[in-house]
């Protein structure tokens, strides 16, 4: 402990962690304020939102899965060629020759599936807790776009292994696209870079999956988080409405407690 203190108070450590050890509340708030990655958080949070049942941490889980996907995805990109005979062989190489390749591919694949599910559950949670009420309407809309982006990311990634499963799953999807009136065929052509799923389609899906959609989703996530802060933090749902000590008040915070109202009523009687 002595050495630990010495190191943490030393010049080098202080140059890195400016705040020093978070011993006081002031220092604790500096941890959040001074850190690029943590400063999206407020210094203080409502106690009720930390309760597991108020959010089930679904948003955090979604973001956690996104981080896993980015990291494993970058690793996979080192070994992957978006070209027709090689793409499939790279899957085999990941399995048979690359260190931990199989684990990382599995992790990427399963995390992608899990993310679709968790994001959907997150949306349901927000809906049933009515956490989209003003002023958070637009954040809900961003959330819907995030859900769509998640689906698209997962779907574009589905083609990349270039196996039968990928190929035919994507054909089913892109054939559905054809049904769109007037522009259906054009959209499909644009997405596939041709009329059939081939090398061009693989390249386009690769670019979408590894560049465009991750950029889009990262920006949307940023905005989503930012607006949570700006809209007054997480809302933990309407359940508290009934059993909380203070009732919710419309418009301005009038600070009227139910007890006071009941007392008044009793007094009237």
């Amino acid at each position, binding site marked *: 402990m002595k050495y630990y203190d010495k190191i943490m108070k030393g010049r080098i450590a202080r140059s890195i962690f400016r705040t020093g050890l978070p011993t006081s509340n002031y220092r604790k708030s500096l941890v959040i304020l001074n850190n690029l990655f943590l400063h999206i958080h407020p210094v203080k949070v409502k*106690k009720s939102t*930390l309760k597991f049942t108020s959010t089930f941490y679904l948003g955090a889980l979604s973001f956690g899965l996104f981080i896993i996907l980015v990291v494993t995805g970058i690793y996979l990109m080192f070994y992957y060629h978006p070209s027709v*005979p090689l793409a499939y*062989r790279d899957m*085999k*190489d990941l*399995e*048979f*020759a690359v*260190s*931990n390749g199989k*684990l990382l591919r599995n992790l990427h694949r399963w995390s992608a599936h899990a993310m679709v599910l968790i994001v959907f559950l997150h949306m349901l949670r927000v809906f049933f807790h009515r956490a989209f009420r003003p002023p958070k309407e637009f954040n809900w809309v961003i959330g819907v776009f995030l859900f769509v982006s998640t689906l698209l990311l997962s779907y574009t990634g589905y083609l990349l292994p270039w*196996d039968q499963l990928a190929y035919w799953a994507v054909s089913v999807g892109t054939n559905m696209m054809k049904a769109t009136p007037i522009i259906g065929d054009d959209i499909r052509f644009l997405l596939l870079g041709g009329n059939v799923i081939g090398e061009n389609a693989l390249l386009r899906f690769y670019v979408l999956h590894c560049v465009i959609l991750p950029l889009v989703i990262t920006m949307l996530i940023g905005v989503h988080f930012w607006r949570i802060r700006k809209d007054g933090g997480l809302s933990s749902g309407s359940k508290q409405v009934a059993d909380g000590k203070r009732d919710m008040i419309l418009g301005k915070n009038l600070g009227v407690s139910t007890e006071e109202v009941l007392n008044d009523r009793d007094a009237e009687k």
Partner: protein
Amino acid sequence: MRDLTKPFGIISVLFFIIMAISPVKEHYREWRIYPREYNEYIKDLPQRITPVQETVKQVWVPELDVVDRCTTCHLGLTNAAFRDAPQPFKSHPEMYHQPERFGCTPCHQGQGLATNVESSFGFSKDWEYPMFSSPFVESSCGTCHNEDSVSHAPLLNRGKELLAEYNCAGCHNITGIDRGFIPSLDGIGNKVSKEWLKRWLTNPSSVSQNTVMPDFLLSEEEVELLSDFLMTFTETTDGSELDPLPEVLKSEIPESLFDEGETLFRNARCISCHSINSKGGTIAVELGTVASKASKHWIYNFIKNPSKLQPGITMPQYGFSEEEIQAVTAYISEEFIDWDLSEEEESTEYQTDPNFFEKGLKIYRTYNCGGCHSLSGYPVVENFGPDLSDLRNKPHYQLEFGQKDIPHTKEQYIIGKLKDPRGFLENSLMPQFQFDETEVLTITTALFSLQNKEIPAKYTVKKEVVPSIEVQGEFGKIVEKYQCLTCHVIFDKGGTVAPDLTKSGSKLQGKWIKEYFKLPYTVRPILTERMPNLFMSNEEIEIAPNFITGVFRDDELEPEIEFLFSDELITKGKDLYNNTYGCQSCHQLQGQGGYVGPPLDDLSKRLKPGWVFKRLKDPQKYDPDIPEPNFNLTDEEALALTAFILGQGNKNEK
């Protein structure tokens, strides 16, 4: 707020443990374990062998699209010191291709990219080409070697032969194998009785044991309809009726005629090609019970002109006179009767269906009878069974195993299909063949060699396509009439039973050929097939030898050497024959010697000295398959031996 520091600590420890599992597993992967074991193993070997590194090794052949990592674990593959080593270090028995140039999977299949046992050898959803079980490896030879006969691949060669023999191409599209001989059904109404046809259709092999015709498992009604349908065809292929049966054959046959027929049958050496009760040649059909099958009328016409009744048949048109034909017919129709056949065929009341023709035709088409037989006016229905030309790469999910309780592998599927064609799907139409166990294995091997995949030309061996030269003119007519090409080869075309005649003009003396046609004798007594007496006309006997000695020549075989057989030369030749080269160990001469080669007596009248000389110098040059050793004789030695064989050796003196 609950303090979570402690749970956080515990979970963190757990977290790091879990994260370490995969890197630790990495250390124990099979491709690391086997090199380690190898390095342990070589310590005990007497030879000094350099240890290997724990790395993935691979053979990469871009042209064949092969990346094989087999050598990562099979480390002693090319090293004779590992002949008795345990797997995976054991050396490869005999290798016909270097693994560095070809990899392993082009022959063995299996997943070359894999680095663990299960994935390399086995079948999985992502790898449909598991390693071949040992008999089928030969099929891989056939993917690049398109010759008719691939050396070191007896199963494949036999399988291909069987594919042709059973005329599988009649119903299936098989690359490299054409639809085979098609026995015409024209005139069948005049040839056989309906009773016989019914028995035949019910189960062909019960009538003729060695028939290649499979059992179509027809129902009784189908048999009736199809027989009625076929019995309506009485005309020959060219549309004419049969010649009328001579009076003498219609009634009781005189014994003298029968005896004459028997003698002719023997002289013509019919049993060179035909078997009688399973004894005799195998080139043509069994004759033991032919009289119970074919009518007298038909036999008479057939001997008279075989190819009129059965176009494309290999039977020669013997030069019999009218009376001789009658005699042979008399003999055959009296002698070869199936006595086991019950006299009273139970003729159950069968009401002939008024629409038998349409219904019969429908059955004829349903079972694709036209795939193997021709019937004028009802052309061949093109390949009607599944396409087999890419069987090796047929996707696994296209194999319908149905309710069949066998391992779901392609090998087992093909084996099962050959043994029990209708066992997989109820509506399957494939007939039941009489394959024995070996035939099933060989055919499976041949089928596995079928694939459409493009293989770079430098890796393939093409089937030699020789532009066929038709023999024209008078001699051409003789060749056709006597079907010489059934047994002999002329200009790279014909059967392999008897010697190639293309260069026989340089080999044989014209006078001898003439004598031979008059009365053929056996040059090689150990062979079953003998040259039949074709009863050629004198005119033909004049034409043929002239043509042979005039046209079938090769200047190379006629060296400009003056062959003067002096006694000195003959003595020297005798010494070479008996002592230096020991020719008598294989050849007979004056009743002494071995039986491997043909006897060398009386060759002076038959062979030309130039041919003997050249042949002695380089036996394989003219017949690559001949077992005669090449002694690298000098001109002088060859000359001496020629002199001895053709001159002195045949003067019948000690």
